[in-house]
C-alpha cells in the first residue's frame, strides 16, 4: 500500500483493516467478502451504483448498522489492529472515536452552541466548553457565520450551514475518523463546494471515509477509491454488494483494472 507520497519513509499503519467482511440483514446477504485498508489522514471514497451497499459498508466502521433490527456482521473490522466487533467491545466506545456525518443534515432542535457541545457534554468533557465550541466551529468553517447567534436554533440555518454544523458537532468530540454518508447530496452546488473544501482541510488531522453517488466528487476530493458493485445470483435473484476494485483514485478513474470499474467510471451504467 506504500505510495510515493509517503515522504516520511515508513509504511503507515492503516486506521481500518477490513477482513473478509460479510453483512447480513436478517437472512439476506448485503455485502460479501470485503477486504480493504483505510489509511490515516486520507480521504477514501466509496462509490458504486445504488443499492450496492456503500452506506452499509460505511456504517460497519462505527457499528451503526447494528441499530437496524436483524443486521449481522461476519469477519473483522480492525481499528488500529483491534477488532471493533470483538466480544466485550462497547459500540458506544467505538462511536466516540469514529464520528459520522449523515446524508441529510440532522442538527438537534437545540441551539447552535448546544449542538456542538452535545458530544463533549455526554462524554463528560471538563475543559473550556466555549473554547471547544469556537474551535470546532472554526474548524468546520462556520464560525464567522454563526458567532453572533450561537444561542439561536440550529434549525434556522440553511441546509449547507446545518451540514457544516453537523461536521463541527462530529469533530467536537475529537474523533480519529470521520465517516460521511453522501454529505453533500442534499445540498446545492455552492454548499457542496464548501463541504468539499472543508474536507480537504480536515484531512490534515482526520481520516475521512466518504460515500458518494457523485463520481466527479469522488475524483475531485478523494485520495483513494473503493468501487462496490452489485452481484446477482441468477437462480434466486438475491443481490449483494462486493468490492470490485480498491486503489488510488487517479488509478481507479484513469487506469481501472476491472472492466466493471471502467464501465462505471466512464458512465456506461450507473
Amino acid at each position: 500500500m506504500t505510495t510515493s507520497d509517503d515522504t516520511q519513509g515508513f509504511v503507515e499503519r492503516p486506521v481500518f483493516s477490513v477482513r473478509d467482511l460479510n453483512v447480513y440483514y436478517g437472512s439476506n446477504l448485503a455485502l460479501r467478502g470485503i477486504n480493504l485498508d483505510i489509511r490515516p489522514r486520507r480521504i477514501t471514497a466509496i462509490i458504486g451504483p445504488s443499492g450496492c451497499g456503500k452506506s452499509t459498508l460505511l456504517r460497519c466502521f462505527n457499528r451503526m448498522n447494528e441499530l437496524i433490527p436483524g443486521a449481522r456482521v461476519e469477519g473483522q473490522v480492525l481499528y488500529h489492529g483491534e477488532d471493533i466487533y470483538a466480544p466485550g467491545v462497547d459500540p458506544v466506545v467505538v462511536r466516540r472515536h469514529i464520528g459520522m456525518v449523515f446524508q441529510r443534515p440532522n442538527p438537534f432542535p437545540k441551539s447552535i452552541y448546544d449542538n456542538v457541545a452535545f458530544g463533549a457534554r455526554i462524554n463528560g468533557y471538563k475543559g473550556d466548553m466555549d473554547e471547544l465550541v469556537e474551535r470546532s466551529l472554526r474548524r468546520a468553517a462556520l464560525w464567522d457565520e454563526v458567532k453572533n447567534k450561537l444561542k439561536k436554533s440550529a434549525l434556522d440555518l440553511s441546509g449547507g450551514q446545518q451540514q457544516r454544523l453537523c461536521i463541527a458537532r462530529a469533530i467536537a468530540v475529537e474523533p480519529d475518523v470521520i465517516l460521511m454518508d453522501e454529505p453533500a447530496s442534499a445540498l446545492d452546488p455552492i454548499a457542496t463546494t464548501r463541504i468539499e473544501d472543508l474536507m480537504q482541510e480536515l484531512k490534515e488531522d482526520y481520516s475521512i471515509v466518504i460515500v458518494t453517488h457523485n463520481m466527479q466528487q469522488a475524483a475531485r476530493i478523494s485520495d483513494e477509491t473503493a468501487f462496490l458493485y452489485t452481484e446477482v445470483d441468477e437462480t434466486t435473484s438475491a443481490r449483494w454488494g462486493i468490492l470490485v476494485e480498491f486503489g488510488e483514485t487517479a488509478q481507479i478513474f484513469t487506469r481501472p483494472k476491472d472492466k466493471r470499474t471502467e464501465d462505471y467510471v466512464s458512465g456506461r451504467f450507473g
Partner: protein
Amino acid sequence: MSDRTLPISDSAGALGERWAGGRLGAGLSLRDCRPTRRRVWRDRRNKALVILAVLITLLPVGMILYHITSKGLKTMDWEFLTSPMPLSFRRAGGGFLNALVGTVIMVGLAAAVSVPLGIMAAVYLVEYGKRNWLAKVIRFFSDVMTGVPSVFVGLFVYTALVVQFGFGALMGAASLAIIMLPIIVRSTEEMLKLVPQELKDASLALGAAKWQTVVKVVLPSAAPGIATGVMLAVARAAGETAPLILTALGSYQLTAKLWGEPMSALTLAIFDGARNPFAAGQARAWAGALELLLIVLVCTIVARVIASRSRIKR
C-alpha cells in the same frame, strides 16, 4: 361571491358548451376551461355543509360556556373563592375553598405519580419494547383502561383500599392516577414516535449511550407534545366525579389531611349543590362549575405557553 360567478355566466354563450377539464384544443385558451355550473354548485353545497357541521358542533360548547358563565358569575366573588362551604345548603354565602383545595391536592398527587410513570412506560414502549410481547400487553391494557368507565375505577379503589383504610384524599388520588396513566402513556408514546430516527442516529453516532439519547435528545424533542398530553390527562382528572364519590366521598370541612377523613373536590361539591333543592346551594354549584372551567382553561393555556417556550422555534 359575484367575482366567481360572473365570468361563468359571461362565457356561457361564447363556447356553447362548458367543460370542467380535458386537453386544450384548437382555439381554446385556459380561460375557456371553467368548471361547469353543476360543479360550482356542488362545491358551494359541500362547503356549506361542512360549515354547518362546524356550527352544530360548536353550538353545545357555546351554550355550556354561556350558561356556566352567566349563572356562575352571579355567585362568583372573593368570598366564594376564599371560604369553605356552609354546613347547610340553605344558607347563602360561603364558597368552595375546601373543594378547590381537595381538587388541587388529589389531582396534584395523582399527577405526581402518573406523569413520571406514564412517561417512563411510553419510553419503554417506543425505545426498548417496540413490538415485543410485553410492549403489546402494555399497549393493549392501556387501550382497555382508556375505555373503562371511570366509575369502575372508583369501585376498584373502593374495594381495594377504601374498605380497609376509609375514605380520603389518597384513595381519591389513586383512582385519578389510574384514570390518568393510560392517557399519558398513549399520548406520550405517539409523541415519542414522531421523534425522527435521524436525531437518534446523530446522538448515537456521537457516542451517546441509549439512555443518554433518550434523556438528552428524544424527551426534549417531544416535550411540547408530552406536556399537551399531560394537560389533557390533568383536565380529565380534574373533571372526574364518579370515582371520587366512591373514594374521597366529599366533605364540608376544609382539610389537607391525606387519609383518615373524607375530602371534597370541585366536581363533588358541584354535584352536591346541583342535586339539592335550595337556591343558595344551586347557585354555589354554578359558581363552582365556572371555577372548575377556569382552572382547566388556565392549565391548558399554561401548558401551551410552556410548550411554545421550550420548543426552539423553527
